[in-house]
C-alpha cells in the first residue's frame, strides 16, 4: 500500500524565471519565498515519485487529437519545449519519470472508468518545467506528468476533475510497494493569455477560491461552472489542476503559502501546501 504524503499547488507562469523584472519586487520576493517553502516541504517529505498535474499551452496537444486527460508513460521526459527556440530562463533538460507507476495508473483507470490518454513521447512546456525547476532543481524525485485540457474548449468540468482526483487518491493508496507519492498541481489562478482581457486579474475570485481550497471545501470548487471560471480570465481554467488536487486530498485542509496578484505577471499568483 502506497502513501499519499504531500500535496503542492502553485502558479506556473514563466515570468518567475525569465521576466522577473516585470513584477513588483516585494511580490516577486513573496513568490520566491513560497517556492522555497514548497521545495523544502517536497525535500522533507522525500516522496519516491510525484504526479505533476498541469494544463498545457497548445504546444503538444492540438485540436486534431485533444484528450481531456493524459498521463506521460515513460522513464524520462524533456523540456521546456519553449527553450528549444529561445532563451527561456531555464535550460532544456531531462527529468526522470516512472514508467511502471504511470502504467499502473493508466491500466487501473481504464478498468475503472478513468479513460486516460497516454503519451510515451512528450516534450513538456513551462506549465510543468518552470515549477519543477524551483521545486526539485536537482531532480531528486521522479515525476509523472498529468495533463488536463484547460486551453481548447470544451474542457473537462471541474466536477470531473475533482472526481478524477478522488480516484487518483484511491488508486495511489492501492499501489503496492509501500512507496510515498506526492501530487503537485500547477497553474492559475485568474489570468488571461492571448485574449482581450489580458492583464486582468480577479483577486476577489482568487481569494474565495483559495479560502475554499485551504479549508478543504473541494466540493465547492467542483461545483464551479465553466462560465464562472471563464469570467475571471481566458486562462483561469488552469485551476482545474488545483481542483483535481483537492479531489485527491478531499476534506483535507491546506496551508496558504502565498497569494499575490502580480500585475506585471498578469496573474493572480498563489501557492498552497497539504501536509
Amino acid at each position, binding site marked *: 500500500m502506497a502513501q499519499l504524503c504531500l500535496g503542492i499547488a502553485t502558479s506556473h507562469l514563466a515570468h518567475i524565471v525569465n*521576466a522577473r523584472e*516585470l513584477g513588483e519586487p516585494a511580490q516577486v520576493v513573496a513568490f520566491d519565498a513560497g517556492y522555497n517553502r514548497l521545495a523544502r516541504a517536497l525535500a522533507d517529505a522525500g516522496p519516491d515519485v510525484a504526479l505533476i498535474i498541469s494544463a498545457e*499551452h*497548445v504546444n503538444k496537444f*492540438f*485540436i*486534431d487529437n485533444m484528450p481531456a486527460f493524459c498521463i506521460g508513460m515513460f522513464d524520462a521526459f524533456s523540456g521546456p519545449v519553449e527553450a528549444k*527556440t529561445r532563451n527561456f530562463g531555464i535550460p532544456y533538460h531531462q527529468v526522470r519519470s516512472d514508467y511502471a507507476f504511470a502504467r499502473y495508473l493508466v491500466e487501473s483507470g481504464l478498468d475503472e472508468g478513468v479513460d486516460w490518454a497516454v503519451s510515451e513521447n512528450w516534450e513538456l512546456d513551462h506549465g510543468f518545467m518552470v515549477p519543477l525547476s524551483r521545486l526539485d532543481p536537482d531532480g531528486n524525485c521522479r515525476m509523472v506528468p498529468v495533463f488536463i485540457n484547460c*486551453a*481548447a474548449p470544451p474542457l473537462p468540468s471541474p466536477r470531473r476533475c475533482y472526481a478524477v482526483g478522488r480516484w487518483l487518491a484511491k488508486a495511489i493508496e492501492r499501489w503496492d510497494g509501500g512507496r510515498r507519492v506526492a501530487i503537485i498541481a500547477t497553474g492559475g489562478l485568474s489570468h*488571461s*493569455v*492571448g*485574449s*482581450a482581457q*489580458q*492583464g486582468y486579474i480577479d483577486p476577489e475570485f482568487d481569494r474565495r477560491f483559495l479560502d475554499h481550497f485551504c479549508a478543504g471545501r473541494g466540493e465547492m470548487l467542483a461545483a464551479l461552472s465553466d462560465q464562472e471560471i471563464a469570467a475571471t480570465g*481566458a*486562462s483561469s481554467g488552469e485551476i482545474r489542476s488545483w481542483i483535481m488536487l483537492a479531489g485527491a486530498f478531499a476534506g483535507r485542509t491546506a496551508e496558504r503559502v502565498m497569494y499575490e496578484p502580480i500585475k506585471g505577471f498578469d496573474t493572480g499568483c498563489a501557492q498552497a501546501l497539504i501536509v
Partner: protein
Amino acid sequence: MSGLSTGSPRYAINRVIFDLSRQPNARALVADKESFLAGYELRPEERQALLGPEWSRLLELGVLPNLVYRYYMLHGLAPETFPAAIAASH
C-alpha cells in the same frame, strides 16, 4: 495541409498558427505570410485576419487564445503591447 476541409469552423485557422509556430524559421515565414497561407484551405475572412493581422478578429474566428498570443509573439512584438493591440483591433 493535406486532405479536405474537416468542416470544423475553427480547425484550419488554428492549424495554420500551430504549424507555423513549429517551424524552425517561423519568424521568417511570418514575413511572407501569403506564401505560407497558400498551402491552407481557409475562408476569405480567415485569410484576411491572418494576413492583417487582425488580432481580435482571430479570436472571433475561434483561434485559441494561446495561439493568438503565440502568433503575436512570432511577429516580434513586445508582450506588454498585446492588450493595446487587441483593443486597437476591435
